């Protein structure tokens, strides 16, 4: 019998990790109007690098290298899609489709390398658990919550206070006016992609850590549960992405815990839940939880 508190912690951990990926979707979409379907394979790339490097560099070193390399790969992908030109919202669907192609290429190569293996990322938490009152929680889940909270907080602070964040928000609203103020649109966009890559590599660690068995070639697909989370939040709102991710993580954990009572819905309903939640919310609020927010007066 699981306790509600334990389930909530599980859900929170899951939601926090989804939020890392969902924020990646949001910054890229906000900066370039592109839905980055390669996010899942970027995540797998980051996880794979951590897995192969941790013997030599230690976990922290491997993770740092993987985060950096994935950020660079995402930045390179951005340059591949746009060159040095300015993002053009009218043709963003072309680049969106190109990201599907890039995803297939990356995923094929990584699948070939990983094969049927389960790779350990060498994280320090292993399968140890902590006791909070009567509840046992995996250390990796607590770490997921703590690390994600710090990373998400950093992203929010960047958004709000840094010149890059201000440039991104201004350019998302009015590219030309931002350009007139001297915002370098291309640079802002490339940095957004780098940030998304870094967040994906970080998320990979927690998706492969206990209680998951390790990194496998399908780990990247989990990223797509963060996709409904980003949509739920309105696609352009970081707080929205966070709220959507937590909602989906909590729902998923609660459904998984009460699988037996929900068996009328069929086995594996937990996997479908993110999309079910997305559809339900969008029925009520077509622009997402935070999508319609925004003051405008003509």
């Amino acid at each position: 019998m699981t306790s509600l508190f334990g389930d909530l912690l599980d859900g929170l951990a899951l939601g926090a990790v989804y939020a890392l990926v969902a924020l990646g979707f949001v910054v890229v979409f906000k900066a370039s109007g592109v839905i980055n379907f390669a996010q899942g394979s970027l995540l797998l790339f980051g996880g794979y690098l951590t897995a192969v490097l941790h013997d030599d560099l230690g976990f922290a070193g491997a993770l740092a290298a993987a985060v950096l390399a994935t950020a660079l790969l995402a930045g390179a992908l951005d340059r591949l899609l746009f060159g040095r030109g300015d993002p053009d919202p009218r043709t963003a669907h072309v680049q969106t489709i190109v990201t599907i192609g890039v995803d297939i290429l990356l995923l094929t190569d990584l699948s070939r390398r990983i094969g049927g293996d389960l790779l350990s990322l060498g994280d320090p938490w292993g399968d140890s658990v902590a006791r909070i009152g009567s509840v046992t929680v995996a250390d990796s889940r607590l770490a997921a919550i703590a690390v994600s909270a710090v990373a998400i907080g950093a992203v929010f602070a960047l958004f709000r206070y840094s010149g890059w964040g201000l440039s991104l928000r201004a350019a998302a609203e009015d590219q030309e006016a931002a350009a007139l103020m001297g915002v370098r649109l291309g640079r802002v966009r490339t940095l957004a992609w780098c940030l998304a890559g870094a967040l994906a590599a970080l998320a990979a660690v927690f998706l492969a850590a206990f209680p998951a068995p390790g990194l496998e070639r399908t780990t990247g697909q989990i990223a797509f549960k963060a996709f409904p989370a980003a949509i739920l939040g309105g696609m352009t709102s970081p707080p929205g992405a966070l709220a959507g991710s937590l909602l989906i993580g909590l729902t998923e954990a609660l459904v998984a815990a009460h699988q037996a009572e929900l068996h009328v819905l069929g086995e594996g309903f937990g996997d479908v839940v993110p999309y079910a939640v997305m559809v339900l919310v969008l029925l009520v609020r077509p622009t997402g939880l935070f999508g319609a927010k925004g003051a405008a007066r003509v």
Partner: protein
Amino acid sequence: MPEAPPDDRAALHVENVDVTYGRALSALRSVSLTVPPGGVVALLGANGAGKTTLLRAVSGTLRLHRGAITAGSIRYGSTALDGRDPVRAVRAGVVQVPEGRRVFAALTVEENLRTGGLGLGRRRPAQVQEARDRVFTLFPRLAERPRQAAGLLSGGEQQMLAIGRALMAAPRLLLLDEPSLGLAPLMVDRIAEVVREINTQGTAVLLVEQNAGMALSLADHAHVLEVGETRLAGPAAELARTDAVRRLYLGESADGQEAA
């Protein structure tokens, strides 16, 4: 890339400039004009005459519209402006206030003003503070509501914010595109006063206007564009007396009120 520091005695020289959109649509043909340091030059003309295109060529935003300078040259002081790099213009001290205000609606007043300094990279806090004080002195209304979303300001306040945002980059030459557009007559007078005040503080102004009365009352020199070519040019007071300008842009009956 050598970046000359903003030059107080720099003049804007537009020489025989042709601008073409999408390689086919000719928007400007052999247009020349000069804005002397500290001067006010008005650019008049009907819709589609090429006024905004000329500003885009100077501020470097032609590329966003798939346009390019195909002949002639634009220089501000020692800086050559090629119509394709807004950052270069901002760093040289040339900043444009776009037509229709275009403030960032979801950003606060404060944040909108911060965007005005983005092109200059890192600046000393004292410099930023000085620019902000200047804006707040000009527009006390903005100082009263720094945390309000810009989209909730009135049209006139948004125009003030758009001008204030540009002033945050401490320009030596301000490009104003139709600042009176869609504003109530009282607010138009207020904007005219502000432009005069900004100019008195030493900033040159290139003013694009459909409200010819207001523009000619502010400007030393004026140019009239017609379908991409210069139709008339000369001292503003002289132009205001020519028949063509009176008939086409001032309107016989509204003459007295508009020129006020």
